[in-house]
């Protein structure tokens, strides 16, 4: 089956390119390799999914791009963001890059938002820090941003505190904050996992809308095949620190090649395929 | 602690026999830490005092630990009105300054070492009961307690088998810290003349005597003071050590 990456346009270059990424953690008498020669690309306007189970290395790959790995981690390989080699940047340069061209949306918005700080200030903070905008202008932009992620009454929301909002609303606030500096790349680590299905669907739609309207590229990390299928154009399947398979979402679902991918598909119960013996199907599919 | 246990063998001199000739001597080869106003060896007295302090602290902490755990676990497990009543009483006790409470209790019980133990023990009960209650409530939310109920375990068995083993760790850590505090409280009571009665040595009454001789014989105050400092520090460190030992994941 043909597998065309429609966002890879001739003449363009990828927003993010990771090649030969290796992440290791020294243990008492050995080093544990958690990311093993991973390569991936994100093209302009593309939503790229990274799917895997716990221990697959998907989150550590994302944290490598953000340079947010724990200090004892050893990192090798090459990561380029808009042509700049991230692993060679100083910590100060990296701080500038984060938030400005690169934004991170974590799984648990409740814990990522400062509970003692008003929403408006948190959303506007990147503008104050990176662009040295005055408070009043930053707050005005915060209102616009909160409106763009479909929060009702953004004028009142800016004066409220995070705990006054539900999990889904908090995740929208996080997304608004990530969008403040109009980054080229959003990295979202399991952004919908903590949410109820109805809210999850809304957040997924919001991310697609952001990509469609602003052309923002998104690296979407998830363990959930269903959500990945909903939102992504191109998918990397990770297993034990390696990329098991990559391809367009259609191809991965219609014609999975790698045994692990096939196992994953067979193991996932869906509404339209309720029957069967999942575990046995999964191990059969792996052969 | 070891020194306290083996006091009769370590101490070179009797702690209470008088030797008026040797009074108020400075530290020397014969009397390592000098002698006091009636010629008693300070080193020996300090070690014997450690013995009394440890005894008082041990009994007092046990009284506090057992009483507090009992009250706390019952309050935490049964909740509702039982909880409300027990914890209000504990808060009442807690609202007195510890020393004041101990002094009042001593005044009504009479001055003796035994009563000091009981009084200090009662001072500790509210603290332990609060900790036991909070820990029991945390364990109560764990699913293995629900699982135990589902298979039909009795309340008593759930408390003994599922809850107690999982709250001993914080309680013992707290006990080590309380031990240090008990040593201080006992010294304070003795300093005020409410604990060990002369001629029995206690860091508190030694300190009190030493106070009068600060100019001529500073070691009389410094030695028991240092002894207190070292034992308090020691028990706090022991508490930290216990915290590590009791982590079930270390097994």
């Amino acid at each position, binding site marked *: 089956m043909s597998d065309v990456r429609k966002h890879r346009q001739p003449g363009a270059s990828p927003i993010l390119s990771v090649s030969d990424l290796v992440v290791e953690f020294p243990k008492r008498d050995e080093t544990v390799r958690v990311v093993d020669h991973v390569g991936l690309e994100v093209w302009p306007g593309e939503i790229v999914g990274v799917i895997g*189970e*716990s221990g697959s290395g998907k989150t550590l790959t994302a944290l490598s791009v953000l340079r947010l790995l724990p200090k004892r981690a050893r990192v090798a390989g090459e990561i380029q963001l808009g042509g700049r080699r991230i692993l060679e940047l100083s910590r100060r340069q990296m701080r500038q890059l984060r938030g400005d061209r690169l934004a991170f949306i974590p799984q648990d918005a409740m814990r990522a938002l400062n509970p003692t700080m008003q929403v408006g200030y948190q959303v506007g903070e990147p503008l104050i820090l990176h662009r040295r905008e005055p408070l009043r202008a930053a707050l005005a932009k915060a209102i616009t941003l909160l409106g763009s992620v479909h929060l009702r009454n953004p004028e009142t929301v800016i004066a409220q505190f995070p705990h006054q909002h539900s999990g889904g609303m908090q995740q929208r606030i996080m997304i608004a904050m990530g969008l403040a500096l109009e980054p080229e790349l959003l990295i979202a680590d399991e952004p919908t996992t903590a949410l*109820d*299905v*109805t809210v*999850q*669907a809304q957040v997924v739609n919001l991310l697609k809308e952001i990509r469609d309207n602003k052309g923002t590229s998104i690296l979407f990390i998830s*363990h*959930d*095949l*269903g*959500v990945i*299928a*909903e939102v992504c154009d191109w998918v990397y399947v990770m297993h034990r620190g390696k990329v098991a398979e990559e391809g367009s*979402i259609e191809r991965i*679902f*219609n*014609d*999975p090649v790698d045994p692990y991918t*096939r*196992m*994953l*598909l*067979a*193991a*996932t*119960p*869906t*509404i*339209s*395929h*309720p029957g069967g*013996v*999942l*575990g*046995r*199907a*999964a191990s*059969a*599919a792996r*052969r | 602690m070891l020194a306290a246990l083996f006091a009769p063998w370590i101490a070179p001199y009797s702690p209470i026999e008088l030797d008026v000739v040797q009074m108020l001597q400075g530290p020397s080869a014969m009397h390592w830490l000098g002698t006091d106003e009636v010629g008693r060896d300070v080193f020996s007295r300090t070690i014997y005092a450690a013995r009394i302090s440890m005894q008082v602290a041990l009994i007092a902490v046990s009284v506090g630990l057992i009483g507090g755990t009992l009250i706390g676990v019952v309050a935490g497990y049964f909740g*509702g009105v039982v909880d*409300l009543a027990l914890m209000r009483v504990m808060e009442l006790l807690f609202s007195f300054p510890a020393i004041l409470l101990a002094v009042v209790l001593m005044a009504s019980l009479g001055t003796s070492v035994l009563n000091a133990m009981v009084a200090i023990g009662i001072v500790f009960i509210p603290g332990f009961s609060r900790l036991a209650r909070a820990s029991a409530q945390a364990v109560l939310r*764990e*699913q*293995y307690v*629900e*699982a*135990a*109920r*589902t*298979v*039909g*375990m009795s309340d008593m068995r759930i408390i003994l*088998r*599922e809850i107690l*083993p*999982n709250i001993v760790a914080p309680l013992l850590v707290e006990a080590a810290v309380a031990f240090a505090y008990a040593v201080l409280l006992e010294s304070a009571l003795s300093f005020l003349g409410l604990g060990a009665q002369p001629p029995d040595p206690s860091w508190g009454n030694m300190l009190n005597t030493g106070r009068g001789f600060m100019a001529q014989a500073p070691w009389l105050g410094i030695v028991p003071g240092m002894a207190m400092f070292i034992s308090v520090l020691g028990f706090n460190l022991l508490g930290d050590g216990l915290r590590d030992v009791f982590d*079930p994941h270390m*097994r």
Partner: protein
Amino acid sequence: MSEPAIVIADVVKSFDQIGLFGRKIGPRAIDGVSLTVQRGETLGIVGESGSGKSTLLRLVLRLIRPTSGSVRVEGRDVWAARGSDLRAIRREMQAVFQDPASSFNPRQTIGAILAAPLEVHGFGSRQSRRALVGEMLERVGLPAAMATRYPHQLSGGQKQRVAIARAIILKPAIVLADEPTSALDVSVQAQILDLFEEIKRGLALTSIFVSHNLAVIRHVSDHVAVMRRGRIVEVGPAAQIFANPQNDYTRALIAAVPDPYAKFGNPRNLGVPL
């Protein structure tokens, strides 16, 4: 025909707060729920967070006392039961809980954990209990030698197998499950769901299975009840609820679940019928 295995009749639960100045009536977590579960049937209860589904399960398990209404299990009112009736309920109805990490007393070995229900109900001698524990471990696909391990030495999937072993060691008629696979990876979830199915069939169990995951509920249930804000909004045979939902909320819930096969068609070469 005899009475259904589980009858929940107009149960209300409000979490009241008892304070110094009397009782404060709390909001209703369960607001007039009635359900029945027939013998040998699995009822799936699905709902979002705060719907009251886990509270309802705890009411049936006699872990929480209802404010009003009654729960009958095998013909016995769980809150009126005393003595031998209560012991019978405790033997006949078991549970598997959500969080593998907190399901076991960390200070007991797996063997002691599995033997506890047998001790409580006075089953056999020490020797025969130990033999039965080994047998149960093997039945759930674990080596009998695992009895000497501590819970933290096991993986999440192994812990849920042990939880299933604990639930069936008394040979109960009813096993209730509260999100038993929510904390697991999909490949492990698939194995645990298979095991649960196999054991249900083997012991002809009656079951209530609570989950937020509609696909899992669809997979395990004969009947499905949809909960929202403490009420049942719709209940019926699983196939009917998913194919032809009557309630608006049920419809919205089902529409929100991503279904890749509806979007992309079936995978061609998995080599297994899905």
